């Protein structure tokens, strides 16, 4: 089981951070190895929305599916994995709270790479590390995109 958790201070109001979380089209931009996202139903985040994500692991194209399980704007977002993809289990929780400087975003990921999906020839520890790297960068990108200024 892999994962990361931590809190990042964002120089933007919770509503601005939520805008980034609520628009699923930001997802490929948030994870460096995510290539695209397909939604069912289309549109902004909603409880029950299913997502098929295509990404890369090295030179291989991979897929995994998730489902939005909890949406409390602009405070809490929970996404969980669905069977059949690169992760045997996957849980992402983002909690936003207002702070003096803007927003504290508490982000946690818990996952298990699916050895069935990848098969032999792939090192589970390497895959786990790649996923954790993506999740760390996700947190940095969430901060960066939320803090963008308009001209």
């Amino acid at each position, binding site marked *: 089981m892999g994962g990361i958790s931590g809190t990042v201070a964002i120089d933007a109001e919770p509503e601005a951070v939520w805008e980034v979380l609520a628009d699923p089209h930001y997802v490929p*931009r948030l994870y460096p190895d995510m290539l*695209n996202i397909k939604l069912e139903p289309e549109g902004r985040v909603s409880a029950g929305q299913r997502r098929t994500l295509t990404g890369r692991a090295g*030179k291989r194209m991979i897929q995994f599916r998730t489902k939005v399980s909890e949406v409390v704007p602009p405070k809490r977002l929970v996404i969980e994995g669905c069977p059949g993809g690169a992760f045997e289990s996957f849980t992402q929780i983002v909690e936003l709270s207002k702070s003096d400087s803007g927003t504290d975003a508490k982000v946690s990921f818990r996952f298990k790479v699916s050895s069935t999906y990848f098969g032999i020839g792939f090192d589970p520890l390497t895959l786990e590390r790649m996923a954790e790297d993506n999740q760390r960068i996700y947190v940095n990108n969430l901060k960066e995109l939320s803090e963008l200024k308009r001209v």
Partner: protein
Amino acid sequence: MAGTRDLTRLDTSIDIDSPRWSVWAVITDPSYFPKLYLDAISVQLDPPGPVRTGQRCTILGKVGKTRVEVPIQFTTVDRDFCLAHRALPGGLFAKWNQTVTLSPRGLRTIGRVESEYDLAPAYSSKVADIPTWNRVVSRNLLGYLPRVKEICELLSLPR
């Protein structure tokens, strides 16, 4: 503003180890756009759905710490061969015409991109460092084909 009103033209091509239909599928899937342009963040299509002639698309991007919008309209969608768009008023560009053409070479594809652009005066007048913005834009446009190639050449998992 001397120097900011000149149209910048770029013409690049690349050899992609992937069949033309596969490359076409990537360049016409808007959900890939944030990966094809280095500083694109997300896209919104009007109307939603597969890319087609006349369709409008707003690309949300960033230049440094600034958020920018680039509304475009697809002017040519010629399946497996040519995808062209032009910038619409109200965004980063006063003019941005881009044409992507795909030519088969056996099972490989030669992709070519011709772009010409000029930053919109509304942006130019508010941005202090125009050369930096031009560099960022050029870097995004020049990086388009290598990114298409990278995605198209990804392999499926062995089964």
